[in-house]
């Protein structure tokens, strides 16, 4: 096999945790890092010059051509549709269970068989999508908003703001997530998804906050920001118009990846007995209920796990693709 020469290959490095570089960002005030190399001019100079293109339109153009993006977006679209109208493809009730059929394999009209309580696995898997997607999407939105606002404030104002906010971030970051879930959710009696979402937001925001802070600090040092400041732009204008658009990319990337892990986290919490409560129907509940039956009724574990894996996969691939598209260096 010929040795790949280092120069020949174009660079497109898509990684899920690319932005995790910033996971444990160091204090910018004390740690001086050479500013990263300015964005290299991309090779894609085929577009006619003169027509200004924003980062976003560029990204969108790239994304549409990326098969990974198209596939993952289609999967997610499908998930959203069945979350909104589960009865379209599974007309039965997920709560209708007949113990006499417990653990039986597939039967006509019940392609995935029955679980330990005699519930139809197909119906439950389809109806479980709504809860799992709701948990993923809402928790991610909450984490992204809370985290980026606090992170941006810390990064932009620096000084005391930064010191206080960063220490608070550390406090929440230091609490082990599963442990926090066990403690906080064990006292919850509501059977809605909101306590679980709230818990994820409470312990998840530091991750985004650190990334947003790092991104804002980097963007703040750019010449155009200094220029705008010299021209007398207000703080809010600086932050919203000039810095935010350039700092939002890493947040989006990490958030899409985090979304997948949050869905998986709900399953783990259910396994530990503190996740969603009946009569909620979710993949997490079904996976944890089916896992002890793995020897007798593997199908009851397989389908919800498979659905969960595909969903998480779709969101991670989406995040990957978005990351590639938003990174001008990779163009």
């Amino acid at each position, binding site marked *: 096999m010929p040795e790949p020469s280092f120069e020949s290959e174009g660079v497109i490095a*898509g990684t899920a945790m690319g932005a995790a*570089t910033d996971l444990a960002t160091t204090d910018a005030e004390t740690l001086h890092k050479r500013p990263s190399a300015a964005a290299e001019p991309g090779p894609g100079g085929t577009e006619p010059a003169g027509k200004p293109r924003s980062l976003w339109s560029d990204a969108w153009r790239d994304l549409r051509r990326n098969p990974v993006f198209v596939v993952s977006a289609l999967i997610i679209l499908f998930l959203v549709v069945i979350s909104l109208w589960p009865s379209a493809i599974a007309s039965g009730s997920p709560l209708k269970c007949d113990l006499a059929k417990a653990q039986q394999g597939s039967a006509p009209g019940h392609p995935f068989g029955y679980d330990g309580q005699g519930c139809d696995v197909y119906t439950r898997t389809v109806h479980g999508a709504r809860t799992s997607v709701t948990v993923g999407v809402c928790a991610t939105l909450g984490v992204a908003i809370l985290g980026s606002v606090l992170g941006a404030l810390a990064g932009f104002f620096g000084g005391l703001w930064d010191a206080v906010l960063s220490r608070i971030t*550390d406090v929440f970051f*230091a609490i082990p997530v599963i442990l926090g879930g066990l403690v*906080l959710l*064990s*006292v919850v009696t509501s059977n809605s998804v909101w306590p679980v979402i709230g818990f994820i937001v409470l312990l998840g925001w530091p991750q985004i906050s650190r990334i947003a802070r790092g991104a804002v600090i980097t963007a703040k040092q750019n010449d155009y920001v200094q220029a705008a400041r010299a021209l007398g732009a207000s703080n809010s204008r600086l932050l919203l118009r000039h810095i935010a658009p350039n700092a939002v990319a890493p947040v989006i990337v990490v958030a899409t990846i985090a979304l997948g892990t949050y869905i998986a986290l709900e*399953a783990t919490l259910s396994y530990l007995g503190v996740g969603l409560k009946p009569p909620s129907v979710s993949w997490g509940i079904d996976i944890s209920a089916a896992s002890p039956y*793995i020897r007798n009724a593997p199908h009851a574990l397989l389908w919800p796990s498979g659905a969960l*894996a595909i969903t998480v996969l779709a969101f991670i691939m989406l995040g990957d693709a978005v990351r590639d598209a938003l990174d001008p260096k990779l163009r």
Partner: protein
Amino acid sequence: MGRYVVRRLVQMVPVFIGSTLLIFLMVNVMGDPVAGLCGDRQCDAATAAQLKKEFGLDQPVWQQYLTYMGNLFTGDFGTAFNGQEVTELMSTAFPVTFRLTVVAILFEVLIGITLGVVTGLRRGRPVDTGVLLLTLVVISVPTFVTGLLLQLLLGVERDWIRPSVSPAAPFGELIVPGLVLASVSLAYVTRLTRTSIAENRRSDYVRTAIAKGLPRRRVVTRHLLRNSLIPVVTFIGADIGFLMGGAIVTERIFNIHGVGYQLYQGILRQNTQTVVGFVTVLVLVFLLCNLVVDLLYAVLDPRIRYA
């Protein structure tokens, strides 16, 4: 450098106080722990009051916290409800979890970085795509499913490993649990290394090194790898704290009597002293890891200096 370390250590104090207070409040939210002590029978009022007094539960929360922190500085981590000293539990639990974490980190470093380098150098080839898919699958399946599957397949069907770990928990028995614990992080490390390697491959110093005619092995290990490790080290450093505290699921499946097990028991029995004590130590580990990681930057990247 010395000043930097001192400053960081001073900054740890508020974070330490904050996190312990937070966990203290969280555990307190869980409600009255005494009711569970009497089984399916109601504790008689006199005994319940007596127990509360003995554990200091009759005082307001802030006072409980102050007393607790006061005791902490004298090395007294309190006593669990079943009369076991928390320090005694720690002395058996932490070594076990420490070994488990070492195994997990070794997997991350050895397998994760190796796979990362291989895929980073051979991007787009079948091996790259294969590993990529594998890591994605690992990330998307919950740990407890992976753990239960491996336990059943390797421990019962094949008889290659012990399905549970003995109380002494020697390294040999921790290999599979360590792998399960590391699996998700392993996938992240692989992907991080891959990106980093791929990015640095076309940097000037690598080109220079190749132009100088250095052997390929030397270019990869001395120049490319060292410079690509910063994000990886950052991740692994932060991960140590998570692995130690996040082993609740793994330790439960493989019946390892480590930190995760004690935390889980502590929470189920609403044992404030155990939970807060263990989390306090975990927070310390987490903070120190962060510091060590930041110091390591300077080792890996000479451009970084500390004020």
